[in-house]
């Protein structure tokens, strides 16, 4: 397989802004007093949307916001597959590989994307733009093959669609989905 290229992000750049902290505090308010820890997944998503991944520094800041021990944040972040615990490319393509998608060609599609971007699964392109990952069932089984990227679904994929999708992302035309 091709060699893995990691984007280097320094810890210092994951300092939360006042605005981000305000959003996190708001998420806490959705839950009764004393149960604010319930907002942890929402808050982890917010941090990841901001920096692209979750550094230890990010998780430590979250522990402070939730007033819990850092380990309580680490143990949650490591359980859920949506969280990237290492730096990733600007655009992470998570391609569904589970049964129903496989029946309509996800294996071949994953191979095609890897070939097109010249990376293997789990790797990032040299320019730091794209990371290719596989995902288990994304809940779009009737619309496969499909991938998710920055809270957006791209469905009914073909090699041609992948080509144009990559170009659109390169030109920065696709904005992140809701969060």
């Amino acid at each position, binding site marked *: 397989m091709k060699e893995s290229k990691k984007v280097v992000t320094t810890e210092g750049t994951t300092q939360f802004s006042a605005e981000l902290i305000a959003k996190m505090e708001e998420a806490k308010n959705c839950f009764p007093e004393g149960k604010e820890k*319930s907002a942890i997944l929402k808050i982890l998503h917010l941090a990841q949307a901001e920096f692209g991944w979750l550094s230890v520094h990010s998780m430590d800041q979250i522990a402070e916001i*939730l007033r819990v021990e850092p380990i309580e944040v680490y143990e949650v972040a490591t359980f859920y597959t949506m969280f990237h615990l290492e730096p990733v490319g600007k655009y992470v393509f998570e391609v569904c590989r589970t*049964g129903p998608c*496989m029946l*309509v060609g996800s294996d071949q599609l994953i191979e095609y994307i890897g070939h097109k971007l010249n990376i293997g699964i789990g790797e990032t392109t040299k320019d730091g733009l794209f990371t290719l990952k596989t995902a*288990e069932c*994304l809940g779009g*089984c009737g619309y496969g093959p499909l991938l998710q990227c920055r809270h957006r679904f791209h469905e009914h994929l073909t090699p041609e669609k992948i080509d144009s999708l990559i170009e659109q992302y390169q030109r920065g035309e696709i904005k992140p989905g809701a969060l």
Partner: protein
Amino acid sequence: MTNRKLLLEHLDVPGIQGIDAYVKHGGYASLKKALQKMSPDEVVEEVKKSGLRGRGGAGFPTGLKWSFLAKPEGIPRYLVCNADESEPGTFKDRYLMEKIPHLLVEGMILSSYALGAKTSYIYIRGEFMYVLEILQNAINEAYAKGYLGKNIFGSGFDHDLVITPGGGAYICGEETALLESLEGKRGNPRIKPPFPAVKGLWASPTVVNNVESIAAVVPIVRDGGDAYASIGIGKSTGTKLVSACGNLERPGVYEIELGLSVEEFIYGDNYCRGIAKGKKLKACVPGGSSVPILPHHLVTKTAAGEQRLMTYESLADGGFQSGSMLGSGGFIVFDEDQCIVRNTWNFTRFYAHESCGQCSPCREGTGWMEKVLHRLETGKGHLRDIDLLADINKKIEGNTICPLGDAAAWPVAAAIRHFRDEFEWHVTHPEEAQIRNYGLIQQPLVA
């Protein structure tokens, strides 16, 4: 057979995502009716009469589940909606929430009234962030109209509805794992008892229901439980959302009346329109990846030669020997070109990936099955591996905290039961198995 729609009736109304169009087409009338004319117990009674069975997979009667909810004084009760939808083959809840979000919002308020819950939660899988946004807009609209918040419809009933995302973990669809996750922890299922009805969210009595179950309460209250029960056959009442995928001419989400024949569903013009590209049906997994696979001769007919129907009973006819289950309604169809060994390996890899790791039989067993199946799929297996799989299977089944272990074991057992020759072929034709599936050529996209 008629084709009544109770959930998706107004699907094509322009703007039905928004509250104005929804109200114009009868939306929130059920809520108003319940709050102004019915007691909470009367709502529960209608749901019992309707015969509604949980649409999340297990098919447990919803009214009965509600009647188990403990009601100690001075302790809050909760309704939690399971919108984690991640059983492979299932994408119906997403469709419903995206297209007609207010149906779920109305159902949540209505069901909470019946249960006496002042706050309810929708736990939606993290990948559906855009659906979360649609629902949040619907919730905001409902607050603005006074359908949420204080003193709804002047009834004195207050209600708050909160929606919150998961983080990508199939196991959080299991109700106690979901509650752990909702409490901000890892999604490890809890040992039962105590059941959520007694100790659920934050140790308070809690009902967990699937999106579709909760949405179905809206037409049940509107038309009455008896009217709902008049649709369907026997203990399979009402309509069901079925998400059809795999090698079908027209995959997608369909609302069917329970009792429709499987043949009509696969081949009918109103439904999936047959197998894609004019190919032949090879097999079908009718209720999500966890249910047993059916070979083509058992899909439209039972072993006894009767027509197979889309009902809980008919799909299960023949038990594990020759039947399957309606499950979540994730209907996966395989054409003649598909390799059962590869698919079984793929599904097992899914369960191995999604096991929370608490119980050794599940954690280790799914991992071992995945390895053995991969070996078989790539032509490196032995004939004895097939029996080894059956043996691992038995050691998982019934020996775990939650049903994920069984869900991983059953599909393997069923695949071997019905397609043993294909497993053996992979052993006896190792070279061919390396380059082709069961004698079937795969077209690579990259030369």
